[in-house]
């Protein structure tokens, strides 16, 4: 098998390391979210749902303003 030039192998090593860090961060964040949901329960849902509704309303306003609110 052809040996990778040193610089390329360094790039791949960096990318792999970064991927591993990213994966760790994803896992940690998902565990944190589940933990918050367990701890706060109803309150977690109230905050999250308010955010979802507000962001949806902002999306609708943006789409209407730009003429994309109706389906073709």
């Amino acid at each position, binding site marked *: 098998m052809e040996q990778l030039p040193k610089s390329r192998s360094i790039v791949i090593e960096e990318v792999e390391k970064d991927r591993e860090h990213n994966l760790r961060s994803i896992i940690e964040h998902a565990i944190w979210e*589940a933990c918050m*949901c367990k701890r706060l329960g109803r309150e977690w*849902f109230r905050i999250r749902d308010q955010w979802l*509704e507000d962001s949806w309303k902002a999306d609708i306003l943006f*789409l209407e303003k730009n003429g994309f609110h109706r389906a073709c």
Partner: protein
Amino acid sequence: MVSIVETIRITNNILFKPSDKTLFLEKEILTIEDRLAIMFSKTLNDIGIRYSIVAGYVAILFGRARRSDDIDFISERIEQDKFLKLCVSLMKQGFNSLQGNLDTIDSVKKLYNEYLLSDLSIRFYYNNYVLPNIKYRFEKTLLHRVSIEKAYSVVINSMHKLMISPLELQIVYKLYLGSDKDLSDAIYLYNLFKEIIDWRELEKWSSYLRVDLSLLRK
């Protein structure tokens, strides 16, 4: 009224009743995703169509802090007449389809023949709001059939009933898909429902899909 004795408390607003695999969820605000899922589910129930909600909305329903542009429904295969009935009912409630008009019979037949029978999804939007929308398709694979046959019930605020894919299958399938978003959903669901997850089921599906469960143990 749910008897506390036969339930397992997941959070102060989520209870699980193992005997009939039902999750009870209490929440103050119904989001647009919830309202669409509830309306669409009720319509399917009323017409007698078996279905299951799969993918991202399952995690969002149980509190994941993210949006989705669609809610994925898989139903059993139905005859064209039943599909016409479904479309009439959806139209009366303010739904339409992105791929055709529900108010013309030819268009509805086209949706049935060219999309559903070809195993493609139809997107239904509500009241001119194109996002989020309902992504609806017929079951095709073994996993789709299991999602419907072994679906969990979710009762929201003691009045709205939804059917969702079994949690174990959802978790393994999301690990199999493997994008950042899917991994997050899988890990979130696993950690939230750890006490009620059946490891034998997880292992069964992971061996079918050749998925490594070690991420869940981290």
